[in-house]
């Protein structure tokens, strides 16, 4: 338990340290990969608030990510909005969409919830294709303006992208931590563990899980918004159910559900892996599937589970040493 709390601060500290050391020296390719990792971490952390804390498997988040991306694309390209208002609008619209979806979906449980959100994800993907005047249909949006420059980063757009993404990740991580420690977060854990007991303790379970879903939808929208501005292009294929939505499940499960810092590790590992195995990109989804299967079968607590067990063993052996020394005296 204590180790868990330590990790909550150690992992972000490592990320910040790596960023401070690495950003000035990394080349554009590394910066780009790092930016994508950070984007996926934003998705993973906020999605963990839903999957990890409440135990509800939503497959509609690829769609919500898309809603954020398309909103930013439309507003900045067609309506001439600045990026920051567009980011806020994307998060809000995705959050509202998520809330509406949640109101419908939480009428169901278990597999029905997954199937229903999967259906919503598929309908959403179809809508991206069909609503051509807004989304550009199959062709999507091109020429989306990039992220605005932060002071001091005007001549290094890749560095600028990474720094902005990191800032959004910091907000997402901080907000998720606050959520976990709030009364609603506690209620979510109660819902995940035992709904009937939670009810009998007077916990408003409907409110708790609705908040978790909306929360994750807001940050899915924000991540989508960043994605649109960073890649300058959005097309429907990134938002199909089996694309980013499925990958987010993989990050969270592999990293360790319900820990918040675990999914960040999951995203780092899973995004970096195909980049390390250069040229293996055709195998990427296959490898994702295998990794997901491996973890759910053999290590359902994910990487976080390994780390926590290791930390526990170390602190225990430390204590044993101390007590032996005491005995020797």
């Amino acid at each position: 338990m204590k180790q868990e709390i330590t990790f909550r601060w150690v992992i972000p500290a490592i990320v910040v340290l790596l960023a401070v050391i690495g950003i000035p020296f990394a080349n554009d390719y590394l910066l780009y990969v790092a930016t994508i990792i950070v984007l996926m971490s934003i998705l993973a952390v906020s999605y963990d608030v839903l999957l990890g804390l409440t135990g509800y498997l939503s497959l509609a988040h690829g769609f919500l990510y898309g809603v954020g991306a398309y909103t930013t694309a439309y507003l900045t390209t067609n309506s001439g909005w600045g990026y920051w208002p567009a980011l806020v609008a994307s998060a809000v619209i995705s959050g509202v969409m998520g809330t509406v979806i949640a109101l419908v979906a939480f009428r169901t449980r278990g597999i029905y919830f997954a199937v229903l959100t999967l259906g919503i994800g598929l309908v959403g993907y179809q809508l991206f294709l069909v609503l051509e005047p807004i989304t550009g249909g199959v062709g999507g949006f091109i020429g989306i303006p990039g992220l605005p420059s932060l002071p001091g980063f005007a001549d290094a757009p890749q560095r600028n992208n990474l720094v902005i993404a990191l800032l959004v990740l910091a907000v997402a991580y901080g907000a998720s931590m606050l959520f976990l420690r709030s009364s609603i977060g506690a209620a979510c854990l109660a819902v995940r563990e035992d709904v009937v007991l939670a009810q009998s303790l007077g916990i408003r379970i409907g409110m708790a899980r609705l908040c978790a879903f909306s929360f994750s939808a807001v940050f899915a929208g924000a991540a989508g918004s960043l994605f649109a501005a960073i890649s300058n292009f959005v097309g429907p294929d990134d938002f199909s159910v089996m694309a980013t939505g499925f990958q987010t499940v993989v990050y969270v499960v592999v990293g360790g559900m319900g820990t918040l810092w675990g999914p960040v590790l999951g995203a780092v590992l899973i995004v970096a892996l195909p980049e390390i195995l250069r040229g293996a990109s055709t195998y990427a989804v296959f490898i994702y599937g295998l990794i997901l299967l491996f973890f759910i079968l053999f290590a359902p607590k994910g990487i976080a589970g390994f780390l926590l067990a290791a930390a526990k063993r170390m602190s225990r052996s430390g204590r044993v040493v101390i007590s032996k020394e005491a005995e020797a005296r």
Partner: protein
Amino acid sequence: MLELLPQQLVNGLALGSSYALIALGLTLVFGVLQIPNFPHGELYMLGASFTYVLVAYGMNFWVAVPIASLAVVIVGILLDQVGYRRIDTGGNLSLMISALAMSTVLQQVATLIWGAEPHTTLSPLPGVLRTAYFSIGYYQMLIFAATIACWLFVWVVLHRSRLGLAIRAMSQNKMAAQLMGIDLIWIRIATFAIGALIGGFAGSLLGASFPIYPTMGLNPVLKAFVILVIGGVGNLWGAIVGGFVLGILEILVSAYISSQLQDIGTFAVLVIVLIVRPNGLFGRAEVLR
């Protein structure tokens, strides 16, 4: 417009029989073992792909169908043994994630072997029956008959055999079935084998009328889940009727409203049904009627 209605209904029945055929295997496994066997869609895809490969090597289509179906049975049993058995007590969430993972893995394996492009085969039974009101391909009639035959097959196995009795006992109460000396492992294997057999058979037959590609199972299996919601989990007759209803509905939507809305219409039905009846139209229906 309306004079085309009989034709649309026939088209709907033809599409519906393909849905029903896929839903049948899914509902059996879900009803007996409470496993949401998402990769059932990939078993369907493998049935089609195996048949395609065998026919491409010069084998007669009607010989290829049973061989491909049996090969799919092996895959189906493996799915359960590898992906579900060891986490059966781990709760719904693990089973769902495992199902999702295996589904992706099978899709990707198929892509690596056969590529992502769609393949088509010639219909083994060409020709069309024409009447004053509608026309229907002979092969479509065959699929319709096969759907009914599969339903009869499963019904007879469940209600007229010792194995079926054991399966039904297990679907009612795992613990009690075990106490009565029923070997759960063999019942699991048998249930998955029957489910996969129908799934593979469906793919093998339908591969001759739809394009064959690695993700071809995704949409049908989702439709099949919709049918389960409409027809009741574990309800065989509900799967058949639900399949036909959905098929006719889709064809009507696509004919009279917009073909782009065909799939959206289906999921709209799903959403509405689940809003009205969160546990499906028949709740947790009496299993295996």
